[in-house]
């Protein structure tokens, strides 16, 4: 979809030449000038060079519109009137999302192969998700859903996989936290991202272990080298459900330094929400707070680029009062009631129980381009994660957490990439990572996982051929992982062991440009994941599920083979894509009900034993969009996953049911000072999950199917100084439906969220 964004400027650097009109063309993603932009039917106008400027003499400025085009970008139509009235006129071209040839845009790396199936969420769509969870933002990608623990905790699910089967890369750093826990959301600020890409194939060769379900690449905006003016954005949001408000600010600038260019970027976000509501009642103690900040500083010249990055993430989320852990009998009663019994007045305060997480990431990165154009990248990163969970405790000791996990992670990787002989490229890389994860003493609660250290070593090589109409690649990787775990169980006995795993993964992929509008991609790759310490050594009641989990220290690594194929069609009026996949996983680890019940101090709990068996996942994602008229646009997308153990054919738990989303958007255009007025209606259908094993769940039935309606209204207001004010009004669950979602683990105790109307104002300067 073409996005037209008009910026007027009064920068003295661009003094108007009375003999010509100027259009400055920027890349909509990277904000860098686009080279090679030309005007249709005006071959005498020279294409843009490095400054992105098109110079148009007055005699050529005729008719109603001008058509801009460039290779690798969607074409853009500009009104002649706009060119006359805004000098120079700054416009943005949007890169084609299904571009298959490797596009090297200065300052922006391509972080995944073009032979892998992926979908991206653009800057504009990310911006709309201020105040939303990271998983909630990803849900707009077909094939991605979420598994939730209440209204404030959500983990992304790609093709039925989540937790430590889904690798998240945060600005090139492997996100390391307590992702093993189903109620542990990723410690990421959705609004800080410049671009998010979901790679659905197994990219394990490039990224190593834990990429079974795919990889989510979250990247900040590239540093604005060459941008001398401080530019930025300030956004504010208010949402009715929970009376949530949020503010985010981005600033960036570049300046010359030591013969090269330096650039910086700073960002900060604050979110504050109170108790949320379902369609019919309040959910007490579901408030949240979030504070995030990040800063990046870089320097580059023609050969060398250095960059430092730091981010801070802090969140506090309340847990619904009635979703407390309880024994089998209590759980049965709470499930029978199905919603809270007592209600208290709405508040922003967060009471016990709640979770608090603080996450730091620091990164130093260098890239050097050799004389032969090959490039060496070296990156070092450090993370610290601090997760505390609080519950009601007697003797006024609730401020002592019942779970207090600390994690330190160091990782370093190096990559060397060389493109040669016009069509070939080789890439080799090495990775080292170390984790120190421990339970901070003093909680008074026997931890469910032991203290452990983990060391990972990996090396890979990828060989790629990119031709005019097709391309292919082969890759191989070797990994070695060591885990040393030590813990004390509920009887005070020591447990744990030193385990080592070695694995080889490989991948093969290809893409073919069948027709000018039709492309096919296919990718086959293996991936692996070592068992996590909680799967090896658990012996105790899981706070989040109310089940007694028993680990198995003899579990072997999961090894998967995934084949993904994608067909993509893009014409002027229609775009469509279908992704289909098959994934076999040997030694798939899961917790199975044993029919045993164990009595603990607080009551009797069903025992779930971690074990492994072979599993088979398959599914299909499809998207279709059509420009019915130049102003009316329709999109529809859906996804379906089937997953079961192969021996017993038993369905696996928490696999999302079929879901489809459609929208109808109308672009009104301009009205006075308002530009790009746009209205959209959305409809989401989620089917009842029928592939469900009652024995592996707390109840013997799944929630019924449901439909949610939403709406969106947006416009741009161009201010006198050329700044922009973007207004966005959205509504989710417009008709305030009371419903339950199968993949929400709190569905036993409460319904899902009711209507939320949000107003967001963004000032671009």
């Amino acid at each position, binding site marked *: 979809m073409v996005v037209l964004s008009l910026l007027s400027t009064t920068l003295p650097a661009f003094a108007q030449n009375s003999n010509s009109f100027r259009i400055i063309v920027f890349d909509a993603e990277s904000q860098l000038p686009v080279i090679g932009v030309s005007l249709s039917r005006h071959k005498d106008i020279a294409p843009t060079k490095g400054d992105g400027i098109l110079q148009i003499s007055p005699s050529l400025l005729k008719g109603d519109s001008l058509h801009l085009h460039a290779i690798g970008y969607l074409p853009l139509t500009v009104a002649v009137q706009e060119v006359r009235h805004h000098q120079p006129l700054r416009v943005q071209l949007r890169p084609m999302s299904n571009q298959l040839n490797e596009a090297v845009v200065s300052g922006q790396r391509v972080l995944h192969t073009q032979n892998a199936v992926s979908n991206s969420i653009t800057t504009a769509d990310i911006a709309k998700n201020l105040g939303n969870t990271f998983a909630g933002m990803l849900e707009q990608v077909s094939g991605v859903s979420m598994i939730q623990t209440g209204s404030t905790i959500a983990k992304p699910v790609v093709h039925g996989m989540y937790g430590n089967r889904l690798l998240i890369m945060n600005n090139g750093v492997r996100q390391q936290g307590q992702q093993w826990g189903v109620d542990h959301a990723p410690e990421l600020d959705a609004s800080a991202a410049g671009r998010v890409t979901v790679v659905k194939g197994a990219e394990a060769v490039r990224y190593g272990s834990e990429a079974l379900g795919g990889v989510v690449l979250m990247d900040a905006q590239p540093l604005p080298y060459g941008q001398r003016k401080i530019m930025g954005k300030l956004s504010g949001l208010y949402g009715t459900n929970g009376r949530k408000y949020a503010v985010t600010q981005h600033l960036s600038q570049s300046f010359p330094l030591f013969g090269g260019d330096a650039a910086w970027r700073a960002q900060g976000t604050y979110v504050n929400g109170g108790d949320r509501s379902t369609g019919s009642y309040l959910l007490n103690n579901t408030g949240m707070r979030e504070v995030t900040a990040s800063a990046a500083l870089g320097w580059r010249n023609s050969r060398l680029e250095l960059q430092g990055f730091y981010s801070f993430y802090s969140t506090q989320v309340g847990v619904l009062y009635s979703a407390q852990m309880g024994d089998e009998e209590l759980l049965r009663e*709470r499930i029978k009631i199905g919603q809270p019994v007592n209600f208290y007045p709405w508040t922003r305060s967060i009471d016990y129980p709640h979770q608090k997480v603080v996450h730091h990431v620091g990164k130093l990165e260098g890239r050097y381009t*050799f004389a032969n154009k090959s490039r060496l990248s070296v990156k*070092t990163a450090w993370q610290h994660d601090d997760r505390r969970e609080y519950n*009601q*405790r007697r003797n006024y000791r609730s401020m002592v957490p019942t779970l207090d996990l600390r994690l330190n992670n160091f990782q370093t990787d190096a990559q060397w990439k060389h493109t040669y002989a016009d069509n070939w490229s080789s890439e080799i890389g090495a990775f080292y990572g170390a984790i120190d994860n421990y339970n901070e003493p003093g909680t008074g609660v026997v931890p469910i996982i032991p203290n452990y250290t983990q060391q990972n070593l990996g090396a890979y090589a990828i060989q790629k051929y990119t031709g005019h109409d097709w391309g292919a690649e082969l890759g191989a990787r070797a990994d070695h992982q060591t885990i040393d775990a030590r813990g*004390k169980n509920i009887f005070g006995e020591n447990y744990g062991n030193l385990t080592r795993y070695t694995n080889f993964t490989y991948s093969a992929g290809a893409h073919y440009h069948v027709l000018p509008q039709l492309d096919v991609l296919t990718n086959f790759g293996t991936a692996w994941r070592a068992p996590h310490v909680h799967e090896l050594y658990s012996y105790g009641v899981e706070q989040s599920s109310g089940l007694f989990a028993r680990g198995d220290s003899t579990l072997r690594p999961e090894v998967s083979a995934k084949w993904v194929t994608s067909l993509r069609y893009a014409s002027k009026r229609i775009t469509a894509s279908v992704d289909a996949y098959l994934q076999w996983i040997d030694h798939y680890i899961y917790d199975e009900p044993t029919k045993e019940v164990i009595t*603990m101090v607080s009551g009797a709990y069903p025992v779930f034993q971690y074990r492994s068996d072979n599993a088979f996942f398959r599914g299909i994602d499809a998207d279709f969009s059509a420009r019915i008229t130049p102003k009316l646009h329709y999109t529809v997308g859906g996804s379906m996953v089937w997953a079961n153990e192969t021996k017993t054919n038993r369905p696996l738990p928490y696999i999302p049911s079929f879901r489809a989303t459609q929208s109808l958007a109308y672009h009104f255009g301009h009205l006075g000072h308002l530009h790009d007025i746009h209205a959209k209606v959305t409809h989401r259908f989620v089917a009842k999950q029928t592939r469900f094993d009652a024995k592996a769940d707390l109840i013997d039935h799944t929630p019924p199917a449901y439909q949610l309606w939403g709406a969106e209204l947006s416009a741009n207001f161009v201010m006198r100084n050329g700044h922009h004010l973007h207004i966005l009004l959205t509504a989710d669950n417009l008709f305030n439906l009371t419903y339950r979602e199968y993949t929400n683990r709190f569905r036993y105790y409460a319904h899902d969220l009711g209507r939320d109307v949000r107003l967001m104002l963004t000032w671009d300067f």
Partner: protein
Amino acid sequence: MNKTFSLLSLTFALLMGFVSCNSTVREPVDERKSKDHGDPISVVLTLTPGTLVNQVFTPQLNPTMPQRSRQTIEYSLQKEIGWAPKAGSNAGFEVYQASEDPTQVYRLDIHYYDLEHKDITYQFVENGQDKIHQHFFTAENVKTADGTLEHKEVRSNAVFDYVYGDTDPWSQEMGNNGVRWIGKDNPIGFKGYFRFKQVRNFEINTRLMHARISKYSRRDHTVSPFYAPTPGQRSEDAWDVTMRFPVSVSAASTTQK
């Protein structure tokens, strides 16, 4: 320049690795020894027959009925078994049906102990903790003498009566100077009195509620009866300790007066 960059990068990366992460796994700590360990390591339930006259209890065996002066069940967390009566202690209680003499009762004392077998019962009572704790007693799997299972919905107060006998100070006995009976207005259940109404075999499910705010109703400041916590209490409050044990109620002796 390129060699310098490469060397510097690799050196820096390696150095960072050595200094930033602890490669030795940290020794775990036994959290049961922590002062904040909330769960008792063992619980002792002691049942004593006697008489309750003017709120004063006197242990007394009925000479017409053969019975023990005291029965004790000690719960602890055991490997392979879980939270269950320890070997050597009673698994349940054997009692007689209540006689027409209303003063004849069975007193149940409950004590909680930590890892050093230190009595930590006071932690649930003192310092305002009495306002958020209450034991409940419900009858389950009620069977007649011939083994017939009674209807699931049989109310616990049809099977036995229980009176909260908590005192202030909690560790003192009624009859001593300055000791008040608080069981009616501030039921906790560390001391209480049973009368078993029917000849039945059943299980008593004893549960300790830890209220989120208060055990008293927001509406009228009343407390829940011994056998019936409210749906709100079941839904929202924590239930810290559970003990389920069998009780066998025999008919009173025909020679009983």
